[in-house]
């Protein structure tokens, strides 16, 4: 650990953030330091200002947000510099992993080239760049040869996440600001990432970790700050604040931790079994949505997924599990009619659905609804979210506008979203807020099958609890079947009865959740049985 004589790598003093038209500041005089060799974590409920803080610490802000205070990066006050001069101050010193990595990867550049170019920031010698790019790719958990020639859109969600991480690492920065680094990763990768972060810190880097993943924070952080409504409400070492991860003991003095911290910790455990209890009995005689013999290949003929045959009877709750890049999203997209299968089809009540969503009538579009993995990208950026949400019920169920809006608002409320939020444009919502909005949009269609692709990845423990609790209730009225694509095993346990395990595009195991999943607290991976 470094001595206190060194100035901290990052020193935020009285940093505030204000948005036009927001009644309270997004950040309220936040102070924090990150020292070389240390990991400072910021946790807090969704919308508490983590992302805003992460950006502010690098002297940046999203559209319409004004910053105040001082952000000293290696002694330089970034906020005191003109925006044009900030990049130079950051170059090679600080790097950022954004919460939505898919939006920041240049769609025109292949992964290898983009990484090598960024390596120039930390590696003046040209020859060293390629090697550095290779190294960080491995460090981020990707196979260099496999991704080198790929464009970002040819990568799975988790792979994009890791590529963005690699781009942050490759700059050789001393300070890393990581915003939800594990959100798209399977447990094994998340665990590996934790080790990587720790190793980096031990190697002398400073890390500012913004995350709702308490497990990751426990494994890596030296210091933890709890943020609520833009204010730091709790501050301490990781063990002090977050404990060991075991359920809170009832005899702990309440004063030891702030209410917000306790809420976060409380929500981490004891996921309500309510969802499973209300599962209606499977309707006999089939019905519902079924995929038969679905195969997806690339143009070049490489298989991406399949052959897979699965049924989703009304009211069923199925989990789709598998390591990152195993073809989960690909399969889910086939169900939704977003990816055309090379072979096989998707049927509803025995009749094949048109393969592409734009060929489906409103009636048929309602059958399968899909929540994108990159939910933040699935909104039109120039109009308020509420109007966008209301369209589902208007267009697919023919409700009048007022009714549709009320229904969307109600569902949003059930998922913990304030009405005020919904009147903003998507650019002014946090990652977790948008993710829930996307869920609302699909839910209000009251589909026969709802496909959720990683809908808890951006949620803190409290919000996640609310979602897991509310979801069964929201699905029940229409007898909607659920396909829950996720790396979040506790959530899977809480929500689903059946599970399907994917590996390399194939369905390698299926059955009741308890049989497919490893025991709770066991090894982090999902080792496919062969």
């Amino acid at each position: 650990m470094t001595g206190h004589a060194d100035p901290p790598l990052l020193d935020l003093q009285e940093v505030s953030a204000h948005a036009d038209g927001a009644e309270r500041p997004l950040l309220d005089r936040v102070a924090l330091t990150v020292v070389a060799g240390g990991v400072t974590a910021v946790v807090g409920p969704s919308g508490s200002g983590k992302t805003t803080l992460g950006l502010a610490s690098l002297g940046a802000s999203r559209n319409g947000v004004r910053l105040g205070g001082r952000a000293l990066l290696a002694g330089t006050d970034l906020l005191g510099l003109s925006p044009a001069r900030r990049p130079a101050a950051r170059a090679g010193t600080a790097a950022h992993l954004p919460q939505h990595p898919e939006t920041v990867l240049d769609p025109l550049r292949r992964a290898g080239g983009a990484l090598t170019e960024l390596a120039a920031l930390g590696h003046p010698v040209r020859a060293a760049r390629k090697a550095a790019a290779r190294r960080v790719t491995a460090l981020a958990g990707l196979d260099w040869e496999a991704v080198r020639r790929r464009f970002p859109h040819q990568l799975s969600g988790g792979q994009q996440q890791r590529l963005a991480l690699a781009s942050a690492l490759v700059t050789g920065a001393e300070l890393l600001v990581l915003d939800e680094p594990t959100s798209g990763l399977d447990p094994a990768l998340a665990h590996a990432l934790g080790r990587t972060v720790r190793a980096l810190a031990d190697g002398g880097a400073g890390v500012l970790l913004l995350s709702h993943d308490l497990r990751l924070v426990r494994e890596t952080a030296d210091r933890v700050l709890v943020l609520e409504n833009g204010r730091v409400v709790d501050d301490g070492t990781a063990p002090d604040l977050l404990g060991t991860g075991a359920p809170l003991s009832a005899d702990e003095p309440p004063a030891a931790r702030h209410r917000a911290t306790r809420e976060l910790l409380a929500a981490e455990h004891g996921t309500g079994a309510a969802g499973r209890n209300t599962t209606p009995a499977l309707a006999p005689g089939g019905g519902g949505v079924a995929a038969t013999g679905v195969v997806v290949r690339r143009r070049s003929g490489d298989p991406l997924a399949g052959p897979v045959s699965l049924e989703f009877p009304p009211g069923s709750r199925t989990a789709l599990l598998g390591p990152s890049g195993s073809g989960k999203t690909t399969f889910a997209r086939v169900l939704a009619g977003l990816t055309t299968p090379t072979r096989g089809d998707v049927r509803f009540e025995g009749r094949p659905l048109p393969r592409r969503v734009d060929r489906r009538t409103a009636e048929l579009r309602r059958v399968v609804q899909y929540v994108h993995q990159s939910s933040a990208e699935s909104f039109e950026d120039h109009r308020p979210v509420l109007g966008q949400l209301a369209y589902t019920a208007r267009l697919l169920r023919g409700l009048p506008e007022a009714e549709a809006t009320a229904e969307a608002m109600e569902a949003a409320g059930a998922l913990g979203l304030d009405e005020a939020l919904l009147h903003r444009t998507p650019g002014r919502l946090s990652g977790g807020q948008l993710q829930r909005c996307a869920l609302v949009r699909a839910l209000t269609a009251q589909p026969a099958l709802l496909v959720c692709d990683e809908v808890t990845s951006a949620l803190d423990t409290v919000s996640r609890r609310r979602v897991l609790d509310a979801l069964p209730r929201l699905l029940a009225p229409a007898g909607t079947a659920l396909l829950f694509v996720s790396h979040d095993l506790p959530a899977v346990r809480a929500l689903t009865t059946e599970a399907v395990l994917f590996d390399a595009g194939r369905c390698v195991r299926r059955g009741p959740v308890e049989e497919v999943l490893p025991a709770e607290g066991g090894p982090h991976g999902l080792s496919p049985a062969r």
Partner: protein
Amino acid sequence: MRAYLLRRSLLAVIQCLVVLVAVFAVGTLLPGDTADVLRGELGTPEQVAALRTQLGLDEPAWTRFGHWLGSLLTGHLGNSLTTGLPVGDDIGRRIGVTLLLGVPALVLVTVVAPLLGTVSGLREGSRTDRTLNTAAVVLHAVPEFVLGLLLVASVSLAAGLLPATAIGMDTAALIAQPAVLVLPVAVLTARHLCDLARQVRAGVAAGRHGPVAEHLRLLGTRERTVVLRHVLPGALGPAAQQFARCVEGLLGGAVLVESVFGFRGLGSGFVEAVQNRDLPQVQTYALLFAGTAVVVNLVGDLVAFRLAPRREVTA
């Protein structure tokens, strides 16, 4: 990619054929024929009829087209009806002139337009931007001949700096005296340059505030790199199409500039061929233009394809 290229090349041949048939069909719709044009006002009906027989114009139209196509397949472009000489002769002479005008203009446009567009787009709203942008629009909106004539009057006639016209000069003479090319190339460039620069400008202005650019800056990437490696390529996607139009326009001959400055390039050649109702020649021009257009479009498509990769998953 190779399969695609092959398919497109095959298609290109078919496209050219279709254009040829269409051009011929349209050509036969035009009133009068070569005999009428050649004998003109003074021709008596006997003279015109004699010439018509001599030129083979009394044969049915499609027989003539068949002949022409047949000779095309054997590598001959046929003989001009008006001169009786191989059509290649005249077009060959004119291509040189058009290339001398078009290629420098093209090079200028290619180099300067992205430059101006980028400078302007990066300073969107600034005085530099407004000045450049206004100049571009003015140059684009002023009729070409007005621009040409004003330039000649000021630069050549008043100041005596550059030759006023290129009349009586063939390719060799033009090469020997490149000063003649300066004004016409400037006029030619002006229009296309403005088009392209503004397109690049719009793309740059849009791309420089995009999430990717902001993120690269967050990582500490220098502004120059952000612009050159990310913003500009993104802006060039739509501009590539504009550029293709520009190549076509420049290589297809520029009728107006040619006539203002007295050049004999492909543009005036084509007009002349149509006026003379010299169908073999018209068709050869059409083949040339269609070929250029098809090739340019193919290249434009490949560039656009690279600059806007599609999400392809399945066959």
